[in-house]
Structure formats: C-alpha cells, structure tokens
C-alpha cells in the first residue's frame, strides 16, 4: 500500500500510454484555469492598482473586506453561483450550470480577491518617485499604467501565478458548478476526487502528480519567456 510509489508508476504509465481520458481532463483543466485566470487578471490587476494607488474614503474597510475574501471557500462560491445559474436562478435561462461557463464564473469570483490583494501589496512596495517620474517624462494615462505594470512586473506575475495555481488546484467549484461530467466538465482535480472517493488513492495521487508536472512546465515557460535572465540575476 505504498501509494506514493504506486502513484509515480501509475502517473508514468498514464503519461506514456497517452491515455485519451487523461488527455481530456488535462485539457479541460488547462482551458478552464487559463480562461479564469485571464479574466480574473483583467479585473484584479486594475483593481489592485487602484486600491494601492488611490486614497479614497472607505479604503480601510475595502482592504479588510479584501483580506477577508482571501479565505473565500470554494463551497461558498459554488453554492452562491449555483443559486444564480441553476434553472431556477435569475440567470437560469442561459443554461450555464454544468458547463464551462459556470465553472469559469465561479473560479473568477474565487481568485479576483486573491489577485487584487496581492497586486495591491506589490503596488504598496513601489517607490513613490516612480509616479512623479512617469508624469515628468510625459507619459499619458495609459503609458503611466504601462510603466507601472512594468515596474511591478515581478509582483504582478507572482499574483497571477498564485491565482492560476489556486484555480488549477481547486476542486469545490469545478465539482459543484461543472458536475464532474465525464468527457465534458471533468477536470484533473474532480477526477482525482472521484478516484479518491473510490478508494483508489494511488491513481488519485498519480493524477495529482500529473497536475503538478503540468504546473511545473507552465512555470518554466513563464520564467523563460517573461523573466528569463533578469530573474536569474536577482
């Protein structure tokens, strides 16, 4: 019963066997995570920068709420979105339950607070002089934003990667809103939960290893594409 050794063997066989079902869940997981992270970043990056930069009246309470939402459990998001998109919900007519769109909505809600909070932290730690310099160099609003993104790039990349990891590894939302339907909305994590429930721990762990391998490859890609030499230098 050494599940760990068993898991490595299983993972190996699954990968070299080009298992069709495995290919399916991997591609589903990837498409979902990338899409959700993309949209969550589109919301979270400007939101984080706004909170980090602007002094508005209710800032303290916004910050506390943001920190609170870091603990948003997937089940809460699941039930909440479920009650909106189920056939009896107000968005029921769009038939998003047990489909990709349903999962994506849930995952976006899950990681927008995470990405926003991490980016806010990254913005806080920048040198104030950056902003005046951008202005004096004649940057337009959009160029100021771009320069800010560039200066905060490690922090932003870190936030996006953390968000991506979170959705890639989450199971509650995919399960509740996707339904774990074989060949349709089954992801690596929901498949893993299923195998674990069946008591096939070794197989479940094998899927987990494949997921981590995947995340590893993606991170290597991110590294070499975007940061490459610079990161190394640090």
């Amino acid at each position: 019963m050494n599940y760990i050794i068993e898991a490595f063997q299983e993972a190996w066989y699954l990968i070299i066997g080009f298992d069709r079902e495995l290919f399916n869940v991997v591609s589903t997981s990837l498409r979902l995570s990338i899409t959700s992270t993309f949209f969550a970043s589109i919301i979270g990056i400007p939101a984080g920068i706004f909170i980090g930069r602007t002094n508005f009246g209710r800032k303290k309470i916004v910050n506390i709420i943001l920190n609170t939402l870091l603990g948003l459990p997937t089940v809460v998001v699941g039930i909440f979105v479920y009650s909106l998109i189920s056939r009896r919900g107000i968005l029921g007519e769009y038939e998003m339950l047990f489909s990709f769109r349903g999962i994506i909505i849930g995952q976006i809600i899950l990681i927008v607070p995470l990405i926003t909070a991490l980016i806010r932290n990254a913005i806080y730690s920048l040198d104030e002089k950056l902003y005046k310099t951008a202005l004096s160099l004649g940057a337009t609003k959009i160029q100021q934003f771009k320069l800010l993104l560039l200066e905060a790039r490690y922090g932003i990349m870190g936030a996006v990667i953390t968000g991506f990891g979170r959705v890639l590894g989450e199971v509650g939302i995919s399960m509740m809103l996707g339904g774990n339907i074989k060949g349709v909305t089954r992801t690596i994590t929901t498949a893993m939960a299923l195998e674990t429930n069946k008591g096939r721990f070794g197989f479940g762990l094998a899927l987990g290893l494949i997921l981590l391998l995947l995340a590893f490859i993606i991170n290597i890609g991110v590294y070499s594409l975007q940061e490459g030499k610079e990161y190394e230098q640090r």
Partner: protein
Amino acid sequence: AQDRLILATTTSTENSGLLDEILPTFEEKFDVRVDVIAVGTGRAISLAENGDADIILVHARAAEDAFVEAGYGVNRRDVMYNDFVILGPADDPAGVKGMESAVAALEKIANSESNFISRGDDSGTHKKELSLWEKASVKPSGSWYMETGQGMGASINVANEKEGYILADRGTFLAYSGDIDLELLVSGDPLLFNPYGIIPVNPAYHTHVNYQKAMALVGYITSQEGQQMIYNYTKYGERLFNPSAITPENFN
C-alpha cells in the same frame, strides 16, 4: 480515556440521519465514542483494508464479499435494506412512468436516447445501475448518457438540471424531493432491493483495531432494540430502512 470506535460508512447512510438515532444509545451503553467517517463505499472499504477504520457499514454486496474473502473483515451481518427508484422529468419523454420492471424501463430510456445521469463512481448505486444495464443488454454510451462521478445528491441535482433520468436511493430522493422537479417514476421491482451489511475489521489482520467494541456494535445494531429503532425511524413521513437481521414479525 474513553474507548473510540471508528465506523466508516457511506454518505447516504450518514445523510439519512439514522446513525444519529442509533449511535447515542449505543455509545452510552458501551461507554464508547463512535467516530463516523462518511465516505464513498469504495473509500470506506479501502480505509478498512488499511486498518484506519474498525468497522464498516456499506451497501455493495460483491465488494463486501471480496473484502471478507481477502481476510480484511470477519463476521459480516445483514443489517437492513432500502430500495432504489428511477426518477425522471415530469413529462417523461421515454414513457416509463409506472412500469413494473426496472430493466424494461432502462431499455426504453436507452432506445429513446433520453438523458440519463449515472453516478459513475463505483458506488453501490452505480454498481446496481450497471447490473441493470447488463440485464437489459444495453451498453450505455453517447451524449445522452452522462457520468457525474459524484455523490447521490449532487447527481440528482445534475439530473434535475439536465431533465434526465436517474437511478437513486429512496432516502436521498426523499431528502431532495422538495427542491427538484424530478418525479418518482419506477419503483418496487425486487431487483431494486438495496441491502446494507456491517463488517468488523479482522483483528487477526489489523491487531490494533477495536474489535471488541466493533462486535458490540454488530450485536447492538442487529439486536431487537437496534432493529426496532431502524424500523421506527422515519423521515419526510416515510420509513427509510427496513430491518433485515430480524424481520418485523419477530419483534417482541
């Protein structure tokens, strides 16, 4: 310290609330704390195989026999049974409402290619469903046949959302009936019989298990008192389980 007994059982048993009825008196009588781990049937059996549970209460006869056969468990006893039912949308596109034979009903569903939701999780319910398909000589496949790989309740929700048919246990159906549009269409076929067994883990194999209290639980749950509690337990105005260690005629 108080004795601890780990009971691994299926989610549907735990969700029915029956254990909350039976266990407190047992705990008091035998001065033991029963820790209920509610998981899938497969997982419950694997926990027991690993020695992480002292006793299991499950409903998957073939797997139970294999478990005992392999020497992991001893002294299996029948405890109770309930039954499976076939649920479907109110407009019943396959026209199975009121049919006596579950097998024939599945055939009609397959022929009309109406949506059918399968749990697809190797659970007792799933295994039962597969055996019914086999009897109907249908190999279910195609987009109308969806495997959720989830628990009973979640699968019923999927069926409700997708307006499909599903094989469910009566207890879970009753629990969900208030929130869904699905209706009970087929029931009563003897093939839909769903027996539960209790098996202590073999103390010869896992020497650390609490075999004494496990046997005590077997004894208690199959006693007159235990069986009557099962018989008397109702929820949503219906009896959820029928005792099978002692038949009601034999209660004193």
